């Protein structure tokens, strides 16, 4: 084929320029270390690159989040750790304080220390993080969760989550009411008195009053009805119209009961309905007993039957005064001697283990009910401890002055287990974070590896390509110079 001289020149030149362009690109690759200089160099690779970069950034952010989550758990863990040891110390002190050998001064000293520890507990619950946010007030992080030892929880139940992996959220706070509050046990004793009717000794008529539907419980009351010829009038001036011989019934509100007048009173006669105050009350002291809950136990008093005055021909031997004790399923009767001490489980092994001290002069039908149950609402440990310390100072540890000994130890244990639960949750979260971090790191390393494979230059290949291209360019230049020298005109 003929060759056009000018075209040969052009062709050689453009071949050299093309070589230079390639060389330039290789050189840029070598100097930047990047295989892909612009997306069009490898469209599929560069999109993969974008996705991988996103994945790497995501897992890096997840790891940063995990670090923060871990820090927050550690702070909480620290607070809960000190809370646990303070609570244990409070419990030790309480055991010591309940020891009957303590003098009142000893008890006050112990109460003082308990109070100080309680302040520390309160400070723990009101811990703030580096942002000045309260750790234990839920979403209300600017609100102090407990204003004082008797304060109610001011926060809410919000739990903040931090994202530590795709679809993996870790809670970073526990609301204070789930940590520092526990359902508490309270022992209560309630008396229900049987109403007493007394007729004024100066009464000249035979008018009587009867009581029905009485539900006054332990309320102490006394009401005197005076007959003025047409009405009974009570102490408050309320008028009850009455026409002999009755009967006429009226409903009273305090205490709720129905009084029924009958027969024929004479003007000036007075009838009194009362709780029997002054004639003697049943008293009960719970000496000891574990803090377990039990179903209500009722003690019902039956007065001594000395003799049956009507009985003929032989007087019946009197039945002594008795308490009938029942917890709804089991029932037992004990003779009553004022000041006696009884252990219920000794009377009947089905009863709960409870030692009672019974005193006072009860009336027939008087009833004492002992209950020990979990209250519906949880109470803050600060309040529980404060109540105990106050009782200790006032030397007021007893059945009718909650908290009593067994209850407090039970309650402080409940608080302790609530804190330990919270710690367990924190520990579990720390574990999850640890595991997620391993996953994140694994993902990150794999992604980085894939990223590097796509993005990074294979230097060995690139450098050998570079020297090949340099050689090629040199050869093109040298042959160009040589070929251009070849012309017939040289020989003319």
């Amino acid at each position: 084929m003929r060759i056009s001289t000018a075209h040969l020149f052009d062709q050689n030149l453009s071949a050299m320029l093309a070589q230079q362009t390639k060389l330039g690109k290789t050189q840029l690759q070598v100097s930047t270390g990047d295989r892909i200089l612009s997306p069009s160099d490898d469209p599929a690779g560069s999109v993969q690159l974008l996705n991988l970069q996103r994945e790497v950034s995501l897992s890096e952010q997840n790891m940063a989040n995990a670090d923060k989550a871990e820090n927050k758990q550690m702070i909480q863990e620290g607070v809960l750790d000190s809370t646990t040891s303070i609570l244990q110390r409070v419990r030790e002190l309480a055991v010591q304080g309940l020891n009957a050998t303590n003098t009142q001064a000893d008890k006050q000293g112990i109460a003082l220390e308990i109070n100080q520890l309680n302040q520390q507990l309160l400070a723990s619950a009101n811990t703030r993080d580096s942002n000045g946010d309260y750790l234990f007030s839920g979403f209300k992080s600017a609100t102090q969760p407990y204003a004082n030892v008797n304060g109610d929880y001011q926060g809410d139940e919000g739990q903040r989550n931090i994202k530590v992996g795709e679809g993996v959220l870790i809670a970073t706070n526990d609301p204070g009411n789930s940590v520092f509050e526990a359902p508490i046990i309270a022992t209560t004793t309630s008396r229900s008195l049987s109403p007493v009717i007394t007729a004024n000794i100066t009464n000249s008529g035979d008018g009587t009053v009867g009581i029905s539907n009485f539900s006054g419980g332990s309320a102490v009351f006394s009401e005197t009805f005076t007959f003025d010829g047409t009405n009974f009038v009570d102490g408050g001036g309320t008028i009850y119209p009455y026409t002999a011989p009755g009967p006429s019934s009226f409903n009273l509100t305090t205490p709720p009961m129905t009084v029924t007048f009958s027969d024929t009173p004479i003007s000036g006669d007075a009838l009194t309905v009362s709780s029997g105050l002054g004639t003697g009350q049943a008293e009960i002291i719970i000496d000891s007993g574990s803090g377990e809950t039990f179903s209500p136990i009722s003690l019902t008093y039956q007065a001594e039957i000395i003799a049956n005055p009507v009985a003929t021909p032989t007087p019946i031997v009197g039945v002594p005064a008795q308490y009938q004790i029942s917890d709804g399923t089991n029932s037992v009767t004990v003779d009553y001697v004022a000041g006696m001490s009884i252990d219920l489980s000794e009377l009947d092994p089905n009863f709960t283990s409870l030692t009672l001290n019974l005193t006072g002069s009860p009336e027939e039908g008087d009833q004492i009910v002992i209950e020990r149950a979990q209250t519906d609402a949880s109470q803050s440990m600060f309040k529980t401890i404060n109540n105990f310390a106050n009782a200790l100072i006032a030397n007021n540890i007893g059945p009718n002055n909650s908290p009593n000994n067994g209850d407090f130890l039970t309650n402080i244990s409940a608080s302790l287990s609530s804190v330990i639960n919270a710690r367990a949750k924190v520990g579990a979260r720390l574990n999850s974070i640890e595991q997620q971090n391993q996953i994140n790191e694994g993902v990150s390393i794999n992604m980085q590896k894939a990223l590097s494979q796509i993005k990074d230059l294979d230097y060995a290949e690139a450098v050998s390509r570079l020297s090949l291209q340099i050689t090629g360019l040199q050869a093109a230049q040298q042959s160009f110079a040589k070929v251009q020298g070849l012309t017939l005109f040289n020989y003319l």
Partner: protein
Amino acid sequence: MSMLNIGTSALVTTQASLSTTSHNISNANTEGFNRQRVVQGTQISSFSGGYYIGSGAQVDSVERIFDQFLSDQVRVFTSQERQFDTFSTFAQQVDDLLGSPELSLNSGLQGFFDSIQDVADDPTSIPARQVMITQADTLANRFNTLDTQLNSFNAQVNANLETEVNNVNVLAKGIAELNQVIMESTGGSRTPPNDLLDQRDQLINLLSSYISVSTNEQNNGAINVFIGNGQGLVVGQSEIALSVVVDPLDASRSEVGYGPSAINVSAQLSGGSIGGLLSVRQDIIAPAQAEIDALAAGMIQAVNEQHSVGLTIDGNAGGNFFGPNDALLQDAGSITVAIISPRDIAIALPVLTATNTNNTGTATLNIKKVDGSDPLFDPLNPLISDLSFSFDSSLIPPGYTVSYAGETASIDYNSASENGKSFDLSLLVFTGTPPPTPPALTITLAGVPTNTDNFTVGNSTNGGFDSVGDNRNALALGELQLSKTLNQVNGNGTQSFGDAYGILVANVATRTNQSDVGQQTQKALLDQTTLRYESISGVNLDEEAANLIKFQQAFQAASQIITVSNTVFEALIRAM
């Protein structure tokens, strides 16, 4: 015929050959030059005494060595190569723009969503919130810059179109003028006006680098040049001018107009740099602009919808995070950050759950999603009353009784098989006439409830907003990074923001890559065809040198004829 005359004819023809060879040598580097050669023939022999005696040589014509087919091929490949070249030049700029780490939306999006995570980690931290605003600004700026750059590419396309159309007009005029001269000089002449033809072919070649052309040679020597679907650019000795017109539908687009009435013929044009400009705008710049705008608008809407569900650190309604507010104006060029104060970032949800402290079961109730898509949604009062859930084991099947605004409805919940069940409360049908509009909440039910266990969901603003540590809306905003919100098919998004950007980069990169490869292919074809064309029409200096020697020797030989004729003549004289 005398020997002298024959010698003279040889001298004349040889001189013509020597001149033509010299012409070839001197034009070896002239663009568009086709080598010429003298077509030599014998003169008419004289008949004398029964036989013919040769009477020497003559120049029949001077012709150019030219192959019309190869010339047409060169034009076709020139047009195609130039189209790919122009396309790839612009496409590479867009490609570099989208791929550059400094401008890439990918890292902008990542920075923004990372900063949301940081705010979620520490919801009350003002510095973290400030960083989120700064990152949002950076992201908005990247959108703005991309928009500006793409607009400037578009403007460059328009400017180049203007220049190229002018060049086409100049060339068309030149071709028309040459047609005129060639028509005049061809008349009656035996020899074609080779150099004029070369010039005209060269102009047509140049024209084909701007736009794809087809030609049609007339008997009178003129060539008609057509573009597009047969629109005549040069007809005989007159040309029809092209012009640049603005698209009436889009003022940012220039189009090519044809003739005095400037009819828009852009759609019919292909090839050359004009074809490249039109197609790169069609295939790269305009789609990239549309994609970036759609991405910006989609992101503005998704982020705003989620953000306006929430409450700020001061308990105010979140409102829009990105501007502008008018949905019709939302695109990559206009996106701004609407939030100025870090306190105004709304990362708290407008509703709170309260678990009754007397519940004895392990059940939980959480808010999964608050739907703010209703324009009337008010984050300050999303619920018209407290919403209470009470588990009722006597229901068949067992479930929660929901009370809202004095009316009731129920949700089945089987803790054994439906633990973690999500339920969209807006599907509830309450009692009452008319029943209250159900709340736009999705809840998650988990755990084992016991009978009468209950939960209350109320407005966060109840009794004054104080849940400043609530980060649930920040987590929801963070979720947007990977959720498929864009490119809705049947109401469901199919792409996340990152996906959409990746697809855009991939499209541009693939097309750029294709155009690079196409350009190289066309270049190779053009080179091959040019080589073939040049091997026929190009000047080979060695060949010309050889011809020079050949014709020089022929000239010397012819001179000897004169000398011999002189000697013969002198001998004849001496003999007299």
